């Protein structure tokens, strides 16, 4: 009977095509999830490199600042020394990051340290009217403040990217794929509150 045979053919086809279609769909969904994670990770790294750009700019500004200040602040060697040391540590931490690592915590700590040292320096500088009136100093101070704001902004963008990444890694469909391909939750840049603190206090508080 033609009809029976046709029906058989149809059913056979369905039996063959359906599992394959389902398997295909599964692969496609997996690929989509993987891509989503991969892109989230790339975005995150990109955001981190944007922080790096700003930090590098700041690191370039600090030696100028030290040079300018040195002539006026003869008696503030300790403060100046702290700034120089903090900068060296921050540069080192940033270099470590550029190697491709994600040592955010170390960089965050080093940057916070430099922030603190710079704030201390600016606070001391208030006591030197000549220095405050110096055009180069004013310019540098503004540049540094601007850069600090840009760092904060880039940091916020980075943390947003980390949050998106971590959400994907931790929540339902993504966590299956994340485990399979070794995607890990990343660490946000968590020194928002510490940034303003004086270094010594921060260390003592054990933050």
């Amino acid at each position, binding site marked *: 009977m*033609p009809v029976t045979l046709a029906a058989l053919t149809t059913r*056979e086809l369905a039996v063959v095509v359906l599992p*394959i279609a389902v398997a295909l769909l599964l692969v496609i969904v997996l690929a989509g999830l993987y891509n989503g994670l991969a*892109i989230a990770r790339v975005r995150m790294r990109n955001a981190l490199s*944007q922080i790096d750009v700003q930090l590098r700019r700041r690191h370039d500004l600090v030696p100028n600042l030290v040079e300018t200040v040195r002539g006026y602040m003869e008696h503030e060697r300790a403060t100046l020394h702290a700034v120089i040391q903090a900068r060296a540590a921050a540069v080192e931490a940033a270099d470590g990051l550029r190697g491709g690592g994600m040592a955010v915590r170390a960089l965050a700590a080093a940057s916070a340290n430099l922030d603190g040292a710079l704030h201390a320096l600016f606070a001391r500088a208030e006591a030197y009217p000549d220095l405050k009136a110096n055009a180069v100093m004013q310019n540098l101070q503004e540049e540094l403040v601007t850069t600090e*704001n*840009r760092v904060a902004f880039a940091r916020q*963008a980075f943390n947003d990217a980390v949050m998106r990444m971590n959400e994907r890694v931790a929540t339902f469909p993504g966590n299956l794929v994340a485990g399979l391909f070794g995607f890990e939750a990343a660490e946000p840049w968590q020194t928002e509150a510490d940034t303003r603190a004086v270094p010594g206090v921060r260390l003592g508080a054990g933050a």
Partner: protein
Amino acid sequence: MNFFDHQDAARKATRRLVVIFVLSIVGVIAVLYAPVAVVLTNEAAKQRGPLPMMPWWDPGAFVCIAGAVSAVILLGAGVKRLQLTGGGKTVAESLGGAWVNPAGASPAERRLLDVVEEMSIASGMPVPPVYMIEDESINAFAAGTSPRNAVLGFTRGAVDRLTRDELQGVVAHEFSHVAHGDMRLNIRLACAVAGVMVIALIGRGMLQVVARAPRSRSKKDDGGVGLALIGLLLIVVGSLGAFFGRILQAAVSRQREFLADASAAQYTRNPGALADALRRIAGIGDNRMAADAAGGLNHFFFTSAVNTWLATHPPIAERIRRLEGAAVAPAVPSPAISSQVGAGAAAAMGIAGASNARPGSSPASRPDPPTNASGATTPVRAIENVRPILKRGMSKRLLEACGEPYDAQAVLLLLAWGHDEAVRERQREIVRAGLGPPMAALVSRLRPAVTDVHETLHMVMIDLCMPAMQQLSRPQYTAFRNTLAEVMRADGRVNLLEWAIRSVLARRIETRFGGLRDPVGRLTLADCLDAARTLVSTVAWAGERSRVQAAYLRGADLLRLREREPLDANRCSLDAVDHALERLAHLDEASRHAVVQAVSEAVSEDALLQPREHLLLRGIADRLNVLVPSAVELLDAQAPGAAIDRRS
């Protein structure tokens, strides 16, 4: 051919592709139905009595096959599309590119950014974000589905080893891809091929199932053989389809490359530089990228990123020949590459290494710059003028601010700043509350620099801010957008500049967060004549008062509007334009182009492009997702309609 013609050509090619794509689907269905038909006819012949009318026809089987095939192909194409339509940003990032922040740019990178800015201002295209791929080969790509989400990518090798002129040629080439809609074409091609390819994949899956199935009784063996046969058939059909699809894809792509080279020569008026760049690449010998991902994205690149015999790019020698209209000069090795190129390139370098002179760069060997019939649509020598005009019109600090994600927000906020002190005070409060005191301080510091800028440069300023604005995270952008909306409302009305900012942001930033949610155009022009008339009338009123009627007719004739009079001036508000645009957004692509073309005709009627006309035109074009030709004559101090120096 002018600007709109090229885009039309791209659309026609797309239509042809769709036809071929549909035909191939029909072919696949027919081929798969054939065995069923054969079996049915045989069965019918075995029966006694007269043959039925169509013994091979079984609607059930046909629907099943047709449905399965279409579903699979569309699914495959859809997945590919999903991968590629995250905008150019996604493509660049998946190739391992990192955004080049102007603040941290090395001198070589700064040069690249300058060239890109000059090119985009000269060509009237939005400034795209630039991504850097750390790879020693010389290559570049444009990615994205529309000019508004396009990004350009360059390899480190291209930035370090090309001269400024050569780099400009390469940048112009990529801009041409953006302007002519090639990226969309490529994406559609890739989707179609991927869809057909899925058929072959299924066939392979079937064969594997059969091969793994345990051997059993003869009855089941029959099923296995049948399955294997179907699998083979699927592989053959799918592979053949994909094969022809690839050939087609490569053929179209090669044509677009020639077109891009020609346009680059037109943009820069310096075909020799692009030829030099190509020659340098030829001199390297092995210019392949290391990134694995480059394989599937070959058509995005400046030269084939991976060599295959289904080349998406024409041979370099042929491209140089066409650019110079002369015999091909021997390859010139780049002086900087000797240490970086492996043994594979040694032979090529040996041949050409003797001569350090660049044959293509002597003026005598170059043809006259291509002349262009439609002068208004190509930037005539504009590129050289852009940098001086920018330098003259905007302070260094302001230019820097436009490139910074943090500072660019302040620039855009300041463009919406009020004219009297009470409003400004309220706006400062809004910024302080919405974006924090540092941002409020930055706004105050930048204000003199922004107010100094002549209004002709406002649109340029907005454009310059966009690459940086695209780097904002979603929460950051949301906060900015809300604050900007409040700042705009502070004086109780929306002016044209604010409206233009909103339009550009909507197109270039907000579509990115929402994916690509351009409404699918189904309406034709006939459905929206009223809305189109509103636009043309408004633009006519924005121009010279004495020529409103003439300007209106220029646009109206193009759209074949029946009304010979523009709408009353009081019915041509920005609200009316917004209302009209909402409706026109649902037009199909060709009609949207027609509308923008009509608007641009109306604008250019009096041959004097005024800032407010420019803002209107750009806002309308952006909302309708259509590129408009350059407005660089607006910036050019020597041009008849030059506005920049009119006040001084």
